[in-house]
């Protein structure tokens, strides 16, 4: 069972990113979270929310719901993103080849890769017409 659960629902557009980060950071500030961990979480939240804002809804603005849950033993944050847009599993995308040179590198695909590398767990499911993506990170 979660110790605390908070919910934010807002339009999925990049202008709202600051509001989403403030929502997540305000929860992290209630616990002792290192700057490094908070930065990793902020980056993950930015990548996922911006993905939804760009790709979930075709040329219309839809909503996104963000749930933040803190659990103890060990202290862990779970952040769930829910949208009603096009089914899209970001985890299905192949990782970029990070050994390539600058010339060979393609621009893109780095965001979700950074999320995979820094979070302890990512789960995606499509259920009842909703994309549900949950990030989990021990603090």
């Amino acid at each position, binding site marked *: 069972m979660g110790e605390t659960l908070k919910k934010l629902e807002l339009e999925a557009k*990049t202008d709202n*990113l*600051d509001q989403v980060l403030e929502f997540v950071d305000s929860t992290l500030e209630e616990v002792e979270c290192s*700057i*490094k961990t908070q*930065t*990793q979480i*902020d*980056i993950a939240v*930015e*990548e996922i929310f*911006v993905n939804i804002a760009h790709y979930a809804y075709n040329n219309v603005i839809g909503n996104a719901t963000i749930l933040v849950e803190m659990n103890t033993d060990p202290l862990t944050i779970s952040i769930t993103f829910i949208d009603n847009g096009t089914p899209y599993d970001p985890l299905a995308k192949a990782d970029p080849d*990070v*050994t*390539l*040179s*600058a*010339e060979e*590198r393609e*621009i*893109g695909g*780095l*965001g979700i*890769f*950074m999320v995979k*590398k*820094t979070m302890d767990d990512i789960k995606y499911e499509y259920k009842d017409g909703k994309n549900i993506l949950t990030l989990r990170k021990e603090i």
Partner: protein
Amino acid sequence: MTINKETNGSSLIMGIEGRLDTATSPELEAELKASLEGIDDLVFEFSNLDYISSAGLRVLLSAQKTMNKQGKMVIRNANDSIKEIFDVTGFTDILTIE
């Protein structure tokens, strides 16, 4: 984000302060596009950069590709969390980090 530009002949130092993210990266991209002509020595001064997301990495990759053709590019004084992002994404091998 604040950009401090210092040009000296064909050398350019870009000091970036604050956050290089989805909201601010387009501004840096536009600034670079307008500034890199004739530059063969580009330095990014990152001692006051707090945060970089993939949007910022894309701008750095694009700048590196441009500078590979016309000179060199160096990143200076990035903090540990930004260096770790460079490590995770393989950018440590692409960029010159001092």
